């Protein structure tokens, strides 16, 4: 089953093409990675998938529904969640509240009923807290539950962002460089976490620079360069693909000269 289908996607900023005629399909319950050199357009792609940018052309079908034209919160309500390359934590809130925000789509109460504390609110609050604890435990963050987000170290925040995204119970999780800036131990933990996420039934779309991690966790990999598709396949296929070797090594050779 295909969960996400991207066709003919293009985006340019003031005449500079960031993504050109990109096509790919993400199968359900897999880890699908997008790799490419810096500036290849990976984050731009994520921003289009999550509704932050509007593409110039193409279509993005998620569970056969068109995502283009939907605002980020509408995309999120269909079951797409994401993490960010530059941490986007709610530093003005506690760890628990950060994750509770993740439960936003699974709860219903409005500002007016909350103001009056109508009876349903208590139930909903308890439910949200239970879900949040679950997500925190899933990401092995239960020890930080009472702390303020601003007091946590970087590695923990990276996982907290994932916990927050998971609390929304998404079917697709977009992860933008989850291992960037992590040390070796943390990277291993992150790899295990990504596996657990996939195993729990959530499809993962991953952008990552750590090739060891990518090759290890991915089911399929898409390589893009200058905004267009260079290759696609399983990790083994990608590693053997001459175009990929050329793009990556060629680039390095040029640097060396």
């Amino acid at each position: 089953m295909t969960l996400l289908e991207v066709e003919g996607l293009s985006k340019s900023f003031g005449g500079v093409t960031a993504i050109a005629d990109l096509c790919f399909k993400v199968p359900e319950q897999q880890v699908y990675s997008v790799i490419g050199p810096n500036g290849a357009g990976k984050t731009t792609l994520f921003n289009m998938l999550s509704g932050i940018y509007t593409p110039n052309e193409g279509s993005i079908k998620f569970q056969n529904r068109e995502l283009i034209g939907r605002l980020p919160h509408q995309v999120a309500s269909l079951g797409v969640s994401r993490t960010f390359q530059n941490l986007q934590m709610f530093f003005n809130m506690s760890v628990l509240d950060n994750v509770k925000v993740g439960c936003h789509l699974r709860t219903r109460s409005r500002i007016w009923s909350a103001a009056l504390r109508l009876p349903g609110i208590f139930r909903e609050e308890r439910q949200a807290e239970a879900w949040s604890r679950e997500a925190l435990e899933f990401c092995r963050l239960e020890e930080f539950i009472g702390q303020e987000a601003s007091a946590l170290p970087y590695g923990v925040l990276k996982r907290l962002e994932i916990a927050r995204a998971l609390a929304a119970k998404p079917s697709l999780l977009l992860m933008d460089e989850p291992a960037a800036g992590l040390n070796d131990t943390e990277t291993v933990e992150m790899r295990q976490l990504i596996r657990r996420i996939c195993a729990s039934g959530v499809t993962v779309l991953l952008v990552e620079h750590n090739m060891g991690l990518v090759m290890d966790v991915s089911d399929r990999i898409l390589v893009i360069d200058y905004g267009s598709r260079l290759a696609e396949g399983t990790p083994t296929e990608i590693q053997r693909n001459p175009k990929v070797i050329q793009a990556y090594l060629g680039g390095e050779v040029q640097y060396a000269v």
Partner: protein
Amino acid sequence: MRYLRGFFILTAIVVAMPFLFPDNYYVTVVAVAAGLNAILAVSLNLLMGYAGQISLGHAAFFGIGAYSSAILTTRFGWNPWLAIVAGMALTCSVAFLVARPILRLKGHYLAMATLGLGIIVNILLVQGERWTGGPDGLGDIPTLSIFGWIVDSDLRWYIVIGSVLLLVVVLAQNIINSRSGRALRALHGSEVAAEMMGINTTATKTAVFVLAALIASLAGSLFSHQQTFVSPESFSFFFSIELVTMVVLGGMASTYGAVLGAVILTFLPELLVVFEEFEVMIFGAILMLMMIFLPQGLLVGFNEQIRKWLLQRARASGGEQRRDIA
């Protein structure tokens, strides 16, 4: 009910004051002004402290409420309660109309737009003489009566304003500790992340803007009936800035901080009158110094000072085993 702990303390203070200091000018007159300011500060804090949307035009909604009550009761003989509701309805529609275009703006541009809105409303109050009485204002506004209990003394007004303040504090606390309240704080923390968590940030901003305006309108109506006289300079941009100062001084994103800020800024000039012409300078200096040394606001600042002090004491007595806390 932990999040309401502060509320119970506040209730105790509000109830105790008239008994501790019966018939005292500061309790019956200044405290009523402080209470109204606190209501406004709490509402502004929802918008500014929690949702992170600065507004330098909050006095405009306060003014719309006050003048709705004043005009409808004096010129059309409406029942004050009906006038209050009508004022809130008017405020609601005005706030709703301007919310979308204004809240698209960020930072200083938002500050400017709200400031402009406040000034425009004030100019309308000054120029719209036929309805508003112009700069001389509008008098003979009837007072409120609650099922025959006529609010005609300072003490009674203290009771009314005190109750409304407590009510507004509960509302604010309830909201903050709910799904919607988290949405507010989330969009303050990171608008894009909030969107990705499914929060409709435009709708949320609009909702809190309208809510804050509604509370301000209510406060305005109460002000109008309490003073029995309104004039435009009570709703000038200076007052908007004063309200922002109350919120920041007490500590942003803290309902009780807003109350504290309002109380301090209302009482401070009362205490400073003895300095006569030095008053302005001293007031400015105090404001500056408090913000330089307690940039988080008084409530947070004090809490931190107390925590540090406790920590130091603990360290001094506990010695070795306490080292990990630092």
